């Protein structure tokens, strides 16, 4: 690249020097050849090879013909300039492409290189890609976790920013799972690999981004087909522009005049200069690629440029509730006690739930937060519907939902409160009610609001939960339309019905996180999976993966796509219009080569700069 810059500078300098002196007409061609060859020798060399291969529609070849032609008709200065600008355009293209590659290469850095494999408890350094499932590795502070696995020894904090964009470290301890690519911060961890290197998070993410470019958007294919015909047509036109007028003039005047050859030759050469469809061929994939790069920077993985196209047309969004709009983590939101100490009530409930692995039980134990003396739990018995009966601190405790209370003859009022309600009965007297609920994600409300704002016509929440819970979330988030108590099959049926009535132009998007959403994610035009935690199967099916679990990224993904598509359209319209205008004006009126140079290189540079705007957007 440096070489090209130097060559361009030297030849511009030489050109200026030549212009300063008055040069005799006879040696002018020779003198102008010096800057011409300085900058264009490589191009000429390439095109000679093309002639050997009978490949006449190559841009090097066309540029050579155009410039040599210009020399012949004594437009030497233009010839040199065409070459200089051609090289500048090429250079610009290279710089733009190199720079956008860098965005992906920073991502490639998350791939861990080496690992401390434990063999007979001694660490040996191996290449990370040699690791197998079941291998045990040691990860020191500030090292990247080389492979997906579970912690078998040690405690530490882990920086997940590379996967989720979240810079707050997360604490991990024995039996927690960790993802490759994340950085261990404080302690030493021993990890057992649960996945192969290729299947581990970091590698999968990089592969997704890298392969995104293969699935081509329709518009890219159109552009490619267009350029296949553009070059031959323009070249044909150029030769016709040269031949036909000369024949007609010769026929009409019966008088051969060298001047006519010059005039029409010049026009033909101008047309050759605009024959390369580079501006189109570069700017469309570049903008698409930048759309993918920009979104992956913001923790959104879009699996192909075709998906950018579909995302930009989304007008109906169906959202799963648990895990998508809510955290999918249960929390105690309310404790009501009847003639009983509130903390004591919680203590009894926590003791009762101690042996249960149900998420509801865990939320109660978490809320209690103190040490549990297991020796005080006796006669523990789990009932159906996750009810529990046990003797705790020598008192008989029964906890469970409404059904269990009725079965055990406990008189309860008809509570209308939303959330999951757990009744606590001590010595056969109802002592209190604990309400547990799934917390709504921080950004969910803003997400719904902004999705409406960017023109999504229909937003609907689909949930398997019961009505009260669905109503609570929908009301809080201002979602007007929702359906509840759905089985995964019913969810699919709703999508199917939507597909039947949906018009072709609008696309249907489904956002979900759990295994039970897999079918819907696949069925929708665009399936979005939430969270790196989303099971592997889903991330394979989904078109878009939102790594950091943040619903606002649904909006961001759509916005990036819309902007990318807009920019692509601008580029196409702009470059084709300019080229056609120059093309027509060259045939109909007179023209000059400067205009042709502008419509080639100028347009190229403008559309590349325009594409770069994808990267500098705010939501």
């Amino acid at each position: 690249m440096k070489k090209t810059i130097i060559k361009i500078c030297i030849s511009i300098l030489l050109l200026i020097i030549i212009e300063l002196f008055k040069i005799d007409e006879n040696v002018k061609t020779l003198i102008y050849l010096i800057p011409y060859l300085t900058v264009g020798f490589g191009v000429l060399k390439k095109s000679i090879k093309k002639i050997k291969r009978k490949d006449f529609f190559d841009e090097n070849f066309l540029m050579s013909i155009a410039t040599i032609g210009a020399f012949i008709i004594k437009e030497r200065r233009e010839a040199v300039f065409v070459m200089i600008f051609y090289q500048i355009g090429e250079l610009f293209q290279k710089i733009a492409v190199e720079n956008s590659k860098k965005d992906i290469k920073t991502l490639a850095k998350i791939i861990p290189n080496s690992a401390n494999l434990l063999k007979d408890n001694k660490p040996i350094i191996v290449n990370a890609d040699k690791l197998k499932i079941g291998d045990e590795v040691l990860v020191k502070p500030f090292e990247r976790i080389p492979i997906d696995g579970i912690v078998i020894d040690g405690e530490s904090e882990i920086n997940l920013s590379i996967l989720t964009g979240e810079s707050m470290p997360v604490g991990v301890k024995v039996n927690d799972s960790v993802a490759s690519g994340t950085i261990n911060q404080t302690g030493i961890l021993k990890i057992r690999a649960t996945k192969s290197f290729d299947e581990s998070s970091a590698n999968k993410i990089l592969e997704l981004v890298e392969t995104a470019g293969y699935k081509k958007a329709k518009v890219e294919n159109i552009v490619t087909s267009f350029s296949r015909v553009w070059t031959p047509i323009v070249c044909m036109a150029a030769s016709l522009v040269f031949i036909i007028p000369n024949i007609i003039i010769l026929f009409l005047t019966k008088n051969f005049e060298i001047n006519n050859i010059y005039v029409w030759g010049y026009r033909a050469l101008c047309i050759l200069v605009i024959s390369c469809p580079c501006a189109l061929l570069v700017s469309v994939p570049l903008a698409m690629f930048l759309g993918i790069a920009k979104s992956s920077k913001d923790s959104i993985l879009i699996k192909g440029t075709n998906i950018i196209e579909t995302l930009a047309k989304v007008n109906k969004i169906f959202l799963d509730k648990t895990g998508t709009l809510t955290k999918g983590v249960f929390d105690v939101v309310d404790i009501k006690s009847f003639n009983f100490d509130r903390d004591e009530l919680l203590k009894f409930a926590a003791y009762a739930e101690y042996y249960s692995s149900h998420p509801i039980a865990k939320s109660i134990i978490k809320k209690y937060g103190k040490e549990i003396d297991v020796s005080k739990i006796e006669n523990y018995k789990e009932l159906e519907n996750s009810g529990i009966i046990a003797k705790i601190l020598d008192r008989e405790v029964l906890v469970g939902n409404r059904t269990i209370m009725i079965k055990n003859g406990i008189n309860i009022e008809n509570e209308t409160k939303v959330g999951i309600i757990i009744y606590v009965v001590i010595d056969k007297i109802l002592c209190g009610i604990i309400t547990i609920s799934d917390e709504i994600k921080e950004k969910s409300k803003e997400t719904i609001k902004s999705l409406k704002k960017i023109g999504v016509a229909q937003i609907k929440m689909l949930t398997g939960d019961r009505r009260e819970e669905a109503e609570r979330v929908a009301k809080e988030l201002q979602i007007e339309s929702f359906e509840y108590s759905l089985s995964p099959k019913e969810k699919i049926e709703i999508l199917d019905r939507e597909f039947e009535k949906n018009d072709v132009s609008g696309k249907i998007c489904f956002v979900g996180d759990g295994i039970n959403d897999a079918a819907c994610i696949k069925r929708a035009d665009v399936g979005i999976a939430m969270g790196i935690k989303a099971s592997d199967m889903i991330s394979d099916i989904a078109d878009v993966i939102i790594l950091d679990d943040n619903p606002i990224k649904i909006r961001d993904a759509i916005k990036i796509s819309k902007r990318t598509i807009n920019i692509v359209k601008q580029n196409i319209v702009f470059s084709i219009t300019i080229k056609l205008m120059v093309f027509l004006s060259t045939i109909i009126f007179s023209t000059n080569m400067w205009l042709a140079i502008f419509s080639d290189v100028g347009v190229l540079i403008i559309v590349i700069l325009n594409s770069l705007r994808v990267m500098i957007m705010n939501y």
Partner: protein
Amino acid sequence: MEKKYDVVVDCANCARLVNDEIKKISGIKDSEINFIMGKINVKFEDGVDEKKVMSEARKKVKEMDDEFDILI
């Protein structure tokens, strides 16, 4: 079978031409080029020796322009 290779091409138009050329090689079912990443994804016919096919492809690409290359 599908495999990815690094390609060296210096312009978008050339990438298109290289891809068109590679598609013609016998033993190759389809191929997609990603000019910006400098990668080509090749789908082979069943039962072909992909090393042999790719060295053929490389030769072809080199013939087009000796600055082009496929890293096998």
